[in-house]
């Protein structure tokens, strides 16, 4: 499934045009991204939580050449699915 499929579901459920549906999806995604960029979590009941975690510097290795390289500190997004979501996919 892709973004267009989500927009299509919205088009069918709410009385908006396909163009509007696509725009709303984009708006929501941009909002989620800007919240995460600020380092804030996003909590969706029944779905899960998106959290931003900071990783320190560490040493890595190029698996092909075996050469050691430094990995810079960075922030990553992790997703923790809710109990409801976890149960649902195993039904």
């Amino acid at each position, binding site marked *: *499934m*892709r*973004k267009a*499929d*989500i927009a299509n*579901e*919205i088009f069918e*459920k*709410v*009385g*908006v045009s396909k163009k509007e*549906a696509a725009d*709303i*999806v984009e*708006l*929501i*995604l941009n*909002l*989620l*991204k800007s*919240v*995460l*960029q600020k380092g*804030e*979590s*996003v*909590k*969706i*009941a*029944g*779905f*899960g939580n*998106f959290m*931003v975690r900071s990783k320190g510097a560490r040493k890595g290795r190029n698996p092909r050449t075996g050469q050691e390289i430094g990995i810079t500190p*960075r*922030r*990553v*997004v*992790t*997703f923790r*699915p809710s109990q409801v*979501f*976890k149960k*649902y*996919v*195993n*039904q």
Partner: protein
Amino acid sequence: MTKAQIIEKVAEQIPTLTKRQVEIVVNTMFNSIRDSLHKGDKTEIRGFGSFRLRSRRMKEGRNPKTGTTVSVPAKKVPFFKAGKELKELLNKT
């Protein structure tokens, strides 16, 4: 930020929709991602990331209270992988 706050913010930006309609939109969005994984499909959202299922093998677990060994059956877990754009956004200086 919670789902309710997301609905609030989005409703402010789209005056043509009622809050109730925005609520349906937001719910539909997450429900359709959930349903796609339930059906064994995956969802790829450009610029944000992808959702898919990962398999977990059966394993031996332990009841922490009684200490008895129990087997935890194999299962699927939802997995999110951040997209390139989102990763870069978080690490912009």
